[in-house]
C-alpha cells in the first residue's frame, strides 16, 4: 500500500464521504472558473449555505427514513401546510390575542408548528408502522392531503407579513449572528470536537484497544477545526449591504464614516439550525439510531432481539414531521410570507439529496452528514448554473443526470470494495 493510502486508512475516515467532499470542491472550482470568479466568494457561499439549509435539514431525516427501507413523499406538502399554519398563527391568531410583535409570538408559532409536524408524522407513522401500510402509499396520500390542507388554511390566500423575530430564522442581513458570536460558535465547536476526540482516544486506551496513530488524530482534528474556522471566516467576510448599514446607522444614531461601515454577517441562523440538529449524534450515539440502521439491515432480527421496531419507525416519522416544521419555518421566514405552494416538489429534492449523500434505497446504508453534503451539492449545482446563465429546463436536466450519476458511481464503488473484501 502506498504511504498516502496507508495514512488515509489509518484515519479511519469514511472514504465515500471524503469522495463526496472532493466532488463538491471540484464542482465549486469548475463553477468558479466558468463564472469568471463569481462562485467562490464569501457572498455566494454564504447565500448557498442559507439556501441549502431547509433541504439539508430535512435530508438528514430522510436519510434515516431511507435507511429503514421507507420513504417520505409527503415532506414537501407537510412543509407547506406547517408553513401556512405557522403563518396564520403568528400573523392572525396571536396578534388578536396578544397584540402585534409580541416578544413570544415567534416561539409560540414555531412551537405550534413543530408540534403539529410531530402529530402529522405520528399519524402517518402509525399507519406505516402499526398497520403495516407501505410508506410509499401512505406518504403519497399525505403529499396530496397536506397540500390540499395548506390551501384550506386560508382558502389559498398568502399570509404576510410575518413577525419580525420569526423572520430572523430565514437568515438574511438581520438573521445572522455577527462576527463576534460567529467566532465564539466556531471556537466552541472546535473545542467540543477536540474534547470528544480526546475522550474517545482515552476510552480506547483504557480498554487497551488499538489506537489510531497520533499523526492521524492530529491530522483529523486539525482538518476539522480548520474547516469550522474557515467556514466562520467566510461567513464573516461577507459584509452587510450598504442599504442595511445605513438603516442600522440611522436606527442607532451613528454617523457613517467616510469609508463606510463594515458589518460582517457571520453565521446565518438557518445554517446554525442545520448544524444544531444533531442528527449525526442521534444516528450514531443513541439506541434509536442503532435500531434505525439495524432495521434496515434485518428487521426480523431486530424484532427477534426484543426491540419494538414499530415504535422506532413511528418515532422516525414523527422526527420527519418535526424536521418538516423546521424546514417550513425557515422557508416562510426567508420569504416573509406563507404561501400554500411553499415546498412543492421539495420532497424530491430532499430524497435526491439523501441519495446523492449515499443513502441506499435498499436500506441499511446512509448517513445524515452525507445527506447534508448532498443538499449542499445540489444547491451548488443550481446556484452555479444560475450564475453561469443556464436556462431552467437545462438546470433540471443537469441535476437529474447528477443524481443518477452519483448513484451509478456509488454502486460501482460498492461493487468494487465488495469484491476486494471477498479476496
Amino acid at each position, binding site marked *: 500500500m502506498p504511504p498516502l493510502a496507508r495514512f488515509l486508512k489509518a484515519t479511519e475516515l469514511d472514504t465515500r464521504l471524503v469522495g463526496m467532499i472532493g466532488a463538491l470542491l471540484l464542482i465549486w472550482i469548475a463553477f468558479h472558473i466558468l463564472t469568471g470568479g463569481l462562485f467562490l466568494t464569501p457572498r455566494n457561499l454564504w447565500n448557498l449555505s442559507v439556501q441549502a439549509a431547509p433541504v439539508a435539514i430535512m435530508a438528514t431525516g430522510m436519510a434515516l427514513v431511507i435507511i429503514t427501507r421507507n420513504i417520505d413523499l409527503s415532506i414537501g406538502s407537510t412543509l407547506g401546510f406547517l408553513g401556512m399554519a405557522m403563518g396564520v398563527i403568528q400573523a392572525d391568531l396571536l396578534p388578536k390575542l396578544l397584540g402585534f410583535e409580541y416578544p413570544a409570538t415567534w416561539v409560540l408559532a414555531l412551537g405550534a408548528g413543530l408540534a403539529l409536524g410531530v402529530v402529522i408524522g405520528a399519524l402517518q407513522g402509525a399507519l406505516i408502522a402499526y398497520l403495516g401500510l407501505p410508506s410509499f402509499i401512505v406518504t403519497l396520500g399525505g403529499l396530496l392531503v397536506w397540500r390540499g390542507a395548506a390551501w384550506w388554511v386560508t382558502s389559498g390566500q398568502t399570509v404576510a407579513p410575518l413577525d419580525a423575530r420569526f423572520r430572523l430564522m430565514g437568515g438574511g442581513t438581520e438573521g445572522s449572528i455577527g462576527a463576534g458570536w460567529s467566532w465564539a460558535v466556531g471556537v466552541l465547536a472546535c473545542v467540543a470536537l477536540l474534547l470528544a476526540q480526546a475522550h474517545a482516544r482515552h476510552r480506547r486506551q483504557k480498554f487497551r484497544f488499538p489506537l489510531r496513530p497520533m499523526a492521524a488524530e492530529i491530522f483529523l482534528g486539525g482538518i476539522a477545526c480548520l474547516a469550522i474556522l474557515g467556514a466562520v471566516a467566510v461567513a464573516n467576510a461577507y459584509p452587510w449591504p450598504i442599504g442595511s448599514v445605513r438603516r442600522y446607522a440611522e436606527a442607532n444614531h451613528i454617523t457613517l464614516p467616510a469609508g463606510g461601515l463594515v458589518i460582517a454577517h457571520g453565521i446565518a441562523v438557518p445554517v446554525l439550525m442545520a448544524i444544531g440538529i444533531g442528527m449525526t449524534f442521534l444516528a450514531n450515539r443513541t439506541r434509536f439510531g*442503532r435500531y434505525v*440502521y439495524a432495521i434496515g*439491515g434485518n428487521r426480523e*432480527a431486530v424484532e427477534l432481539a426484543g426491540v419494538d421496531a414499530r415504535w422506532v419507525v413511528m418515532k422516525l416519522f414523527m422526527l420527519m414531521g418535526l424536521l418538516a416544521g423546521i424546514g417550513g419555518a425557515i422557508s416562510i421566514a426567508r420569504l416573509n410570507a406563507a404561501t400554500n405552494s411553499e415546498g412543492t416538489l421539495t420532497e424530491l429534492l430532499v430524497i435526491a439529496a439523501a441519495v446523492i449523500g449515499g443513502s441506499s434505497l435498499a436500506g441499511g446504508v446512509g448517513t445524515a452528514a452525507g445527506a447534508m453534503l448532498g443538499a449542499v451539492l445540489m444547491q451548488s449545482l443550481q446556484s452555479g448554473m444560475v450564475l453561469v446563465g443556464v436556462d431552467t429546463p437545462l438546470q433540471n436536466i443537469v441535476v437529474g443526470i447528477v443524481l443518477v450519476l452519483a448513484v451509478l458511481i456509488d454502486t460501482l464503488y460498492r461493487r468494487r470494495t465488495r469484491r476486494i473484501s471477498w479476496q
Partner: protein
Amino acid sequence: MAMSDATIPLVEMRDISLSFGGLRAVERASIDLHAGEVVALVGHNGAGKSTLIKILSGAYLRDSGSIRIRGAEADIANPRDAKHYGIETIYQTLALADNIDTAANLFLGRELRTKWGTLDDIAMESEAREVMGRLNPYFARFKDPVKALSGGQRQSVAIARAILFNAQILVMDEPTAALGPQETAQVGDLVRQLKAAGIGIFLISHDIHDVFDLADRICVMKNGRIVGTVRTNDVTTDEVLGMIIAGICPPAAIPGPGAVAAAGRP
C-alpha cells in the same frame, strides 16, 4: 438422569398448538426440559420443530396450550418476554443485522449505555472481544459489518449473543449448520460446558451423531405432532430413524400424539 424426575422442570410446554391458516404447524405438543439437561428435537423439515421452539422464544404466539417456567405459568407473547424468563435463542437464520458490526449485533436490544444515555460502544466492544475470544479465538474483525464475515464467524456471533446474557434456557436451532468439523466440535464443548453450569438446552439438529453425542433425551416430531420422547441411552440410531421416518416408537420411548401404534403394543 434420575435427578430430573424428582425436580420441577425448568420448562414445561403442554398441549401447544399453532396453525398458520389451514396448516397445523404444531398440534398438541408437550415437551419438558430440566436444568442441566440437553433435549434434542429431531424430525424432517416441516415437522414443526422450529415452530415449537419459536413459540418458546416468543417469535410466534401459540393458539392454545400452556408454558410453565420452573413450575409457574409463563406469559410469553414476544421475544422480549422470553428473554425476561432467561430464554435465549440461536435462530437457524442467525437473525443478525448484516449492516452493523459484531458488538452492535451482540447487544442489539440490550445496548450498554454511558451515564448520559448514549451508546457505550467501547464497553460493548470490550465485552464482545471477551466473549468472542472464548468462542473463536482467531476472530479479529470487530469493526466490520457482520455481512463481511464468513458463515462460521457469523454463527459464532449468533452463539455469542445467546450466551452473553446468562441464559437459563438456551434454544439452539441448527447451531452447527454453517460450521466446519473443528468449529462443530467447539460448539459441542460449549454445549457440555453450559450443561454443566446448569443451563437447560433445546437442541434442534439434523446431525444424528451430534444428537447422540450431546443430548440426554431425544424428542421426535412428525407432521406437527410429537412421535415420542426417549432417553438417548435407551435407544439406537436406527430406532430414532424409525421414529423420524415411520413414526414408530421403540419400547423405551414415551409415545406422543404422533406415534403410529406398532404391532404388539396396546
